[in-house]
């Protein structure tokens, strides 16, 4: 496990739940900086319609928002997604700090499983932090762009017989009946 910093440059590193409009805007701004600005994700994919049925957690260095994660809640698991840390603050374990806050929050709500969808290149990172693939590599079919991974909220408890789906719908919930991909996609 990487150590999680308490402070950077004398400024305390803290996390907070988004409870005010301004907090949400901070979370959105950090994600926009990372996903739209750095990774060239179109706006309509980044802000996919789930932001107002989710919980947002923000990491701050001093007063400056530098990281964010969104948690969506399902019946049998909580799903952290859109994990972002501003480029120049990476390498300090702020991502893990955010995930840890997700874990504590999920625990306080009686949830015992976390579920993420990881990029194949990031699987090792998640495994290092105690996550495991939901489906063994050899069992998953062909080319997969994302890997479903899970971990228990309480590390001392075994994972419940996998109740998490291999993939969850990434479409807007109001559009679950619509066929195809998320609306508003601009292909690269």
């Amino acid at each position: 496990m990487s150590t999680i910093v308490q402070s950077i440059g004398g400024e305390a590193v803290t996390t907070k739940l988004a409870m005010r409009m301004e907090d949400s805007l901070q979370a959105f701004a950090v994600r926009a900086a990372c996903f739209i600005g750095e990774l060239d994700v179109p706006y309509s994919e980044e802000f996919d319609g789930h932001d107002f049925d989710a919980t947002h957690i923000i990491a701050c260095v001093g007063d400056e928002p530098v990281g964010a994660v969104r948690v969506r809640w399902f019946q049998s698991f909580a799903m952290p997604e859109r994990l972002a840390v501003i480029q120049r603050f990476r390498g300090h374990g702020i991502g893990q700090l955010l995930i840890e806050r997700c874990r504590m929050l999920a625990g306080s709500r009686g949830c015992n499983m976390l579920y993420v969808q990881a990029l194949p290149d990031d699987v090792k990172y998640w495994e290092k932090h105690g996550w495991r693939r939901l489906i063994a590599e050899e069992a998953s079919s062909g080319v997969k762009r994302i890997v479903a991974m899970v971990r228990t909220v309480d590390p001392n408890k075994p994972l419940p017989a996998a109740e998490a789906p291999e993939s969850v719908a990434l479409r807007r919930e109001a559009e679950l009946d619509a066929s195809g991909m998320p609306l508003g996609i601009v292909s690269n």
Partner: protein
Amino acid sequence: MTVQMTAAPTLAPVVTIKLAATSDELLQSFALRAAVFMGEQQCPYDEEFDGNDYTATHVIMYVDGEPAGTMRLRWFQSFCKFERCVVLRRYRGLGIHHEINAWCKEFARRKGYARAYLHLQKRHMPMMEKEGFRRVDDRVFNFSDHEYYAVYCDLAPAEGAVKLDTLPMVVNRPEDRMDVEGILEKSAARGASNPHAPRVERRAN
């Protein structure tokens, strides 16, 4: 045999520009600025969102329906200040910053403003000179890690700009659609029944 001819699809991107008039459009403006200034230019959040966003006018530009650019306008007595101009990286090189500049100039002009003013990163001077901007004076100043000039551009007076004697219901129209009937003019058809909720005693504390 007849061959059905269909019009060749136009490949030019469709650019639309409007005032950010809903919270979603405002969020789009903020997200684009975060992408460019925080994501590309390392601007800290508190400097990018500096406290003036809720006293300003925001303009949003779409390319084929996707949020692609934005501008913030602030209104002073003798000029309109153009700020936080952004074109998302994937839409650069199309020259569409000229379109949002032109839109904002026209918007300020039709509000009756005779001058647009902005703080320009030094590297953009040649581009903005072509648009008629020139330096206010020789000062060079810096904030958020960039060097700036103050530049301005005179705007031609607009016929029909809002004045004290403009029809009141024209003043009430959505500001980027001043030439078409607004929602409040439609409401006038309901007449004036002067409704008010009755005053009631407060029953709980």
